[in-house]
Structures are given as C-alpha cells and as structure tokens.
C-alpha cells in the first residue's frame, strides 16, 4: 500500500528526514517510536502533504501512485488520514459542519453524490457511540475550548467516520488518561481490517498494549535504525533509547 524509499525532507533549511525506508501493506499496523526530535512528526506531515516540509530526495508510492505528486486534499480523498498531534481551532464552524463538509468533499472526489445533513447524522450515529463522543461537543466550534483529551477523541471520531485506507496517528495517545486511551484504542481496533493500514506514532508503548502492532520501528536522527515486533516496544519502554543510540553510532562508525 505504502512504499517509502530513501525519503529526505527538510523544514526551514534543516534536514530532518535523512533517508527513511518503510513499506506498509494493507491490513498491517506499524508503530513508529523514537526520542524527541527524531523526525516522527515530520514523517507524518510529509505523508499528509504539509507544504512547510520540503522533500529533497526519495519517493513515496501509495497504492501505485506517486503520493508526493498529490495535493493534500487529494491524498485525503484517496484515503490518507492524519490524526493531528495538535488539532487546530476553527471558530464559528461546528464540528458536525466541518466533518459533513469533509465527507462530502471526499464523496465528490470519488464521484458520489452529496449526502444531506440528516443522512449525515444517521450515518455517524454508530460512530458517535463507538468513540463515546458527546453530541454537545460536536455542535461546538471545531476544537475550540476542547481539552487535550477531547481534541484527540475528536480526531479518532473523524477517522472513524472518514474510514481512511491509511490512518496515521501522530501521538494521539499523548496526554490521555487511561479511559480516553481505551476509547482511542477501541476506535482504532474497530477500524482494523485487511484493507486498512495504520501508522501509529507514539512515545510510549502504553497504547500498544491496547492496539497490538505488527511492526515496531525506531526512528532515530531521521532514519529508521531498528525494526521488530511488539517486543521491541517493550524493550524500549524498559531500557529507553540509549542502547539504540549506541547501536546506531556503532553502525555508522
């Protein structure tokens, strides 16, 4: 589904990604871990198409297409979803209005007819229950005055409604209490399917207790330096990143 080859990217002149290689197949859950500043969020933003990040080398193929050649809204309509680490506020636009607009935009891209507000509410009812999102929250402006947990839950809700093919979660678990974390995990697990892939960026293996990844990768200084299964996450939790750093340094010497 996704093939990243030798990806180099920079922001404001600083090279952050220095040759990332990663292949994700449909049905798989990949987790990316790594210390602060290793390039995890940059990778997420590059995949989603943020213009502030410049790709200087390498390629990304998504379902046979050149992802880097597509505008951010095209990528979204083709099924790439990013749950933001810091979701932005849009005053005066209700969450429902926003998501309804997004659903219709994606339908339009796929050549489907618009769905009206009533259909939309029907369609989203089950999902609302699944992620336990408060109706009142949805009538408020997009992310305005939301707590950290509410913002993350709202991201997962949007993901569940939009049913992406490739879902990227950028530290969605950060700052969540155990209940919110369970809800997020439940959202992800309910979407798990042979056609869908996940890329979960996280600092902690906590979320991975609830969402069991097929692969765990360590991103360090802009490269994936180690890959393994969920055992690797436990190891990292246990031993920290230092041994990875040492290994990496030894490898480059």
């Amino acid at each position: 589904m996704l093939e990243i080859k030798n990806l180099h990217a920079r922001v404001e002149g600083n090279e952050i990604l220095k040759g990332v290689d990663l292949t994700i197949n449909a049905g798989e859950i990949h987790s990316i871990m790594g210390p602060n500043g290793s390039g995890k969020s940059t990778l997420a933003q590059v995949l989603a198409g943020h213009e502030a990040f410049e790709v200087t080398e390498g390629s990304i193929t998504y379902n046979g297409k050149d992802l880097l050649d597509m505008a951010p809204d095209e990528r979204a309509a083709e099924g790439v979803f990013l749950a933001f680490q810091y979701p932005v506020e849009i005053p005066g636009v209700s969450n429902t209005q926003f998501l309804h607009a997004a659903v219709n935009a994606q339908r339009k891209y796929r050549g489907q007819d618009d769905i009206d507000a009533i259909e939309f509410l029907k369609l989203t009812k089950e999902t609302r229950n699944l992620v336990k999102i408060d109706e009142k929250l949805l009538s408020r402006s997009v992310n305005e005055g939301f707590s950290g947990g509410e913002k993350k839950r709202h991201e997962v809700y949007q993901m569940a409604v939009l049913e992406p093919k490739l879902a990227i979660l950028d530290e969605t678990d950060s700052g969540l209490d155990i209940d919110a974390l369970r809800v997020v995990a439940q959202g992800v697990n309910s979407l798990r399917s042979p056609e869908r892939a996940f890329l979960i960026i996280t600092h902690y293996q906590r979320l991975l207790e609830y969402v069991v990844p097929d692969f765990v990768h360590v991103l360090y200084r802009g490269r994936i330096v180690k890959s393994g299964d969920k055992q690797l996450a436990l190891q990292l939790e246990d031993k920290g990143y230092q041994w990875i750093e040492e290994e990496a340094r030894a490898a480059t010497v």
Partner: protein
Amino acid sequence: MTTMDTQQAIEQLASRKYKEGWVTDIESESLPPGLNEDVVRAISGKKNEPAWLTEWRLKAYRHWTTMTQPTWPFLPYGYGPIDYQGVSYYSAPKQDKDQLKSLDEVDPKLLETYAKLGIPLEEQKMLAGVAVDAVFDSVSVATTFKGKLAELGIVFCSFSEAVQSHPELIQKYLGSVVPYSDNFFATLNSAVFSDGSFVYVPKGVRCPMELSTYFRINAANTGQFERTLIVADEGAYVSYLEGCTAPMRDENQLHAAVVELVALKDSRIKYSTIQNWYPGDENGRGGIYNFVTKRAACRGEDSHVSWTQVETGSAITWKYPSVILQGDRSVGEFYSVALTNNMQQADTGTKMIHIGKNTKSTIISKGISAGRGHNTYRGEVKVLRKADNARNYTQCDSMLIGDKCGAHTFPYIDVKNPTAHVEHEATTSKIGEDQLFYCKQRGINEEDAVSLIVNGFCKQVFSELPMEFAVEANKLLSVSLEGSVG
C-alpha cells in the same frame, strides 16, 4: 479688465447659462446631464409632487451647492473625481424596447456568477434587465403579498407612490432622521432622489412576512439616489430586506442612498442588507461608489432597531448605519460583515447615540480583507449627559487573507455620563496555514476551506439574518472570495 467689465462679463455668463438651461418637458423620458434648480423642479414635477416637497428638494439643493465632497474616509487608493454635472438625474423606467431580449445578450461573466449563486432563470432575467414573461412568479407573489398587507393596514409601496397616497406620513417623517442638510451625499440625495421604498406598520401590527424590495413591483430601476423610509408605529414589528446576493447590472457609478427608520414606542425594526454591486475588476477599474446614509431613530420607549449588513460589492463602500437611542430602554444593534477583495475599499461602521436612560447598544463588526483590499471599521459610541446606565458592547474582528491587504479600526468613544458602561473588543487574525492544512487533510480543497473558515468567522452576524438570506450570504462570500488564495 475693469471692475465694470468683470461685472458685465459675469452677468453675461449668468444670463447665458440661464438661457441655455433647458425647458422642462414633462413628457420626456429622461433629463439631460447636469444639476441645477430647474433639474430639481423637473424631477419633482415629473413625480407630480406637492409643493412642500419641491421646496424641500430645493432647500436641499441650495444647501448642497455650499458643501464640498468630504475626504475623511480611509481610502488608500483614493477615488476618481465625480462629475456631478455629467450625471443625468432622472430617467424614466426602462421600456420593453430598451431591454435585452434574452439572456444570450447578457455578459457571460454575469451569467456565470448567477449560476454559481444558484439563481433561477427567471430571476436572472429580471436582475440582468432582460424582459420577463408576463407570468412571472415574483410578480404574482407580490400581488398576493400586497393584499395580505393591506388587510393589516400595512403600507408597503414605492416612495413615489407613497407621496401620492400617504402625503401626510411622508411630510411628517421625511428628513426627520436624516435632515436634508445632513451631509454632502445625503443632501444631494434629498435634492434629487429618484425613488425607493416606503413602509408604514400601524399600531400593534406585527408584519407577518419579511418585506423585501425584491418583491415590490417596480423595484427595478429605483436609480442611484434611492430613498427609503420605514415607520413602525407603537408596538409594531417589521423585518425588511434590502438588496439581494446577485450582482445587478448597473451603469451608474455613484450610488448615494438614504434610509431613514423611525421606531415608535415598543416597536421593533429589523433591517437587513446584502450589498453586492459591481466591485470593479482586479485592477480597480470601474465599480460602484456606494456612499449611503442610513440612520434610525428609536423615538419611543422600549423601541428596538437592528441593522444587519453583508457588504461584499462596490469599489468603495462608505456607510455607517446608525441608531439614535432617544426613548428610555431603547435598543440599537449593528451586525456587519464587510468583505474587500482585489482593489475594493470599505470604510464602514456605525454610530450609537445614547440619549435616553437605560439604553443599550451592541456592535458586532467582521471585516475580511483579501487581495489588495482595504477594510476599515469606523464607529462612534456617544453617551449623552442624561443617558443614565447606558450600555454598549462593541466587538470588531478583522481577518486578513494574504499579505497585500489591510484592516483598520477607528473606534470613537464619547461618554458624558459616569454611569455608562462601554466595552470595546477588537481582534485581527490571519487565516492560518495550519487551519487551511487541517481542512485540506480532511479532503476539503483550498477554496472551500477558505470559505468555510471565513463563514465561521462571520457566523455571529449571519445568525442575525433571516434564514434564507443567511444561506445566500454564505454562498455570496464564497463567490466573492474566489481567486483570493493560491
């Protein structure tokens, strides 16, 4: 040249000018360009106005000749000189023979805009000045409306009609809110006003429908000097809609309208405007100068006036719908969205003048600047000595799209009573890259994302508009913003 010679020359010139002044031909279709007392008399004569009204127009004209065009608005691009003698001040309603025969003759660009706004074909014809079929929905609708209104004693007709049918009301209220000597453009309007609307809602009557110029027969061609007068008698209620979202074909550059609202005891007037006159091209060529005087008098106790405006058109918009809060506990409100794109300039706001006790005013202004547009909020809150416990809340927000536009705020606060409570909040924001990216990541394209964000920004104002108008306003903003990003 001796003094004597000079004197003679002047006299000669004066008499020659007089000789050349044309003789009024009541039957003729329009007057030749130019403005003098004869023109004013001719306009009044064509409309068969009573002598007092002719005199009133003349007083206004004479006063106007002593005035100079004001220069105080904030218009960084300035505006071309207006040749007041080059304008024809009267033209009879267009006859069928002048009208275009089909939409094929209309500027395709205009048609494109109509299509984007989703305006039905028959309405497009009316707006573009194409002759419409004899059976036209809005005409028959208007007739039905008129019957209903008449049953309730509500007068809703063209200003000229009202001068004939209700001269006593016109004489009582015309110029009572905006005197003929008020300002350069209002004074000019008083001298030469062409037509407009008149509404009178009698005591205790709640007008059961939104009154709209759109539904008034003969609404087309009210000309560039429109005059509107709305009177709500004690306990009455009326909601009035001016304009429509569709850009109308218009060859007049200067529009100097006057709107007067009179709210008596316990009455309420809600006045909503959508202004979408031709804004000129990307380089600021052409476009309407929209210099309007709008003022309301809350004359009675507990009266209530709210102005809501969505201003997206015109090369220059220069207007301050105001409320004079005379009656105790009267309430004035001003909700405004002004959008400037390309080279458009807007200097708009309001005046709230607190005279009565426990009077209250609210001002919500949303300015959006895109392209190279400049948007200015100018507002005055005045609390007079006797206005105990006056309250005002002002919120002015500006949004910038791109980096070549400007937003400016000039609030004036003048408080003479220590019990007053005046609040002013102002914000300026730029449409954020992060907001746009968030929308795009969900599949919404850039243009739709901008209009979504802008419409959100304007929500407080749009929620004051009648439902259908609000939906149209949403679409209008999107169309007006086209090409402002990317």
